[in-house]
């Protein structure tokens, strides 16, 4: 049996800046990282590998430079790392992306049974949380999103019990394998690839599958297979406010002015 983690290489969006003059993204020197939630998905696949001797496979769709992230996955201990890369995959929205990922997983499933597909709950660049459910639907796997704990995994009975973290509540849910699980950060702590681990992975290579391997209809992938497209990108317009008083030298005076404004506008005061 094998477990698969779907991971994405993303720009570290916390370090993206906007050029104030041209209103465009400053892209220079933005580091690429593994999507943090996917790091937890990867870790969980490794824990199952350690415990049940599953084969762990990491899968990523992206440009050729996404190989770097998969290399790290090899260092952390996955048995195979596969990059799905083809210019025909470019410009994909979530529907076209889930098609490529699901097709690759189906191909792996033919070689050896896939028990669980792990995905991060969402990415930090797209923030959609749509690819995991898309993959599950396409594969016909049961979908378990926002999992923060695997309560029990019974391989012989093909059953899994997990805890899902929702707004203000947890749900304990039982399902049949195979399943697609999206994970939240509380699930685990990703391991650090130590030097011996890196050395062990030194001989492993990232495989690259393009569309000649997957054989997908060009109309169902990439830009052409994407129902949604971006018609416009712009910087948010904001109205600049008023600076009150001289807070550095007269903090009390500034505080007083602020309260006066709020009372005058009936925002506070009337309730007292």
């Amino acid at each position, binding site marked *: 049996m094998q477990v698969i983690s779907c991971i994405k290489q993303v720009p570290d969006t916390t370090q993206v*800046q906007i050029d104030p003059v041209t209103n465009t993204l400053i*892209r220079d020197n933005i580091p690429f990282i593994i999507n943090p939630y996917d790091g937890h998905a990867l870790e969980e696949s490794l824990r199952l590998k350690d415990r049940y001797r599953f084969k762990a496979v990491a899968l990523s769709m992206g440009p050729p430079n996404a190989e770097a992230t998969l290399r790290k996955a090899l260092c952390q201990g996955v048995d195979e790392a596969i990059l799905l890369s083809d210019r025909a995959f*470019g410009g994909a929205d979530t529907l076209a992306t889930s098609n490529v990922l699901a097709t690759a997983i189906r191909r792996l499933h033919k070689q050896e049974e896939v028990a669980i597909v792990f995905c991060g709950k969402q990415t930090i660049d797209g923030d959609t949380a749509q690819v995991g459910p898309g993959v599950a639907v396409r594969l016909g796997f*049961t979908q378990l999103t926002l999992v923060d704990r695997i309560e029990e995994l019974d391989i012989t009975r093909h059953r899994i019990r997990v805890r899902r973290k929702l707004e203000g509540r947890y749900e304990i849910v039982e399902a049949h394998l195979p399943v697609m699980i999206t994970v939240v950060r509380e699930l685990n702590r990703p391991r650090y690839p130590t030097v011996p681990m890196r050395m062990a992975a030194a001989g492993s290579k990232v495989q690259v599958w393009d569309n000649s391997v997957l054989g997908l209809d060009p109309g169902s992938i990439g830009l052409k297979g994407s*129902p949604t497209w971006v018609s*416009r*990108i712009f910087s948010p317009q904001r109205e600049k406010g008023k600076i009150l008083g*001289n807070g550095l030298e007269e903090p009390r005076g500034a505080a007083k002015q602020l309260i006066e404004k709020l009372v005058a506008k009936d925002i506070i005061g009337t309730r007292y």
Partner: protein
Amino acid sequence: MTEPKKPLKKPRGKAQLLEGKCIACGARCQSACPVNCIEMNEAGEPVIDQGKCIGCVKCVKVCPAQAIDMYFTPEERAILDQLLAEGGAAAGEEEDPEAKALAAKLSAYRGVWVFIEQTEGEPAKVSWELLGKGRELADTLAVPLSAVVLGENVENLCQEAFAYGADRAYLMDAPVFRHYRTESYLKALCHLIDKYKPEIILMGATGLGRDLAGAVATVVATGLTADCTGLSIDDKRNLMQTRPAFGGNIMATIMCDKYRPQMATVRPHVMPMAEKQPGRGGEIIRESCPIREEDILVKVLEIISDRKKDHIDVAGAEFIVSGGRGMMGKENFAMLQELADELGGVVGASRSAVDAGWMPQERQVGQTGKTVRPKIYIACGISGAIQHLVGMQDSDVVIAINRDKEAPIFEVATYGIVGDLFQIVPAITKRIRELKAGRK
């Protein structure tokens, strides 16, 4: 009198990259090009082979940054001038049969739907917020607004949906819908979409809503746009969906103009709540349930409430006092708590304060935390990274207190005070106390 002269073809121009506009979005133009005349350079910008370009304008249309436009070569200009001199009649645009077929396909879909989310019969407020926005879209399109209600013993939610603006409610009420499970809700919603063909479906971007929306859009094979902050209709009846992109660094308007239904999710508190009109009526359309319990492989064994007795709901608070990196340490948040107590509000935090371990994650406001819309948001020692701003910029009044007068937080602030928060915050608290004492 016939002249066997081949008419001059109207030149279509060539695509060119505009300097400094490309945002390296991920090679959309390259994927769109039907003749493979675009290669990407190291910086992720297109290099267009103008000799091969056929002027199809696909790359121009697909570019999100308007970084590509069309121009005419001198030879093409000459032909254009000649055509113009001949009267320009040859330039008539031919009717596109493909566009006609698409228009016919799209026009089969009419109406705006809002999915009414509930847990154990308790509706999620975001559903009512969406009915407010849905009403606006339905009025613009001159179509009915419908609520989709799934659950067990939830007919009362239909009445509530009418009060919040729905004209119609599609109701599937059966024991199999008692607990939300992807499979049963997915089948039910897809069944309704197939039968009644709405043009727009809005859902809350909650744990449940995102779980369902992603599955439905895949089965129906249509577009889905997550976390929209703006929704409006363009002049061709298409939904313009605006959302933060690149982790909130910029805004993007997303279209789904060749597929129906157009699906979008919206986070709680992003849209204002619709005004309730008690007694407003509507039509309930009952659908029988084609789903059997024994076909559903997932069982919900237990639901554990996480609402602790002292549960603090940042997202629903009317007054929020938030602290960031400038708070310098965990212990200093007591000062914010004092002010929040005076206002009857709660304490929130920026991502850096949460990452530093000063405040728990559920207090985090911003892109990866909660979206809030309080009456007053007081940002103390928060510089205002865009990820934070997208989570609080819709607050009625934003007050920023920061040492650095260049901090971006001042750009969204209604009122700003430049100074030392450790002096200013206590001064504000004191002033409010004085005010209260004076009124007694």
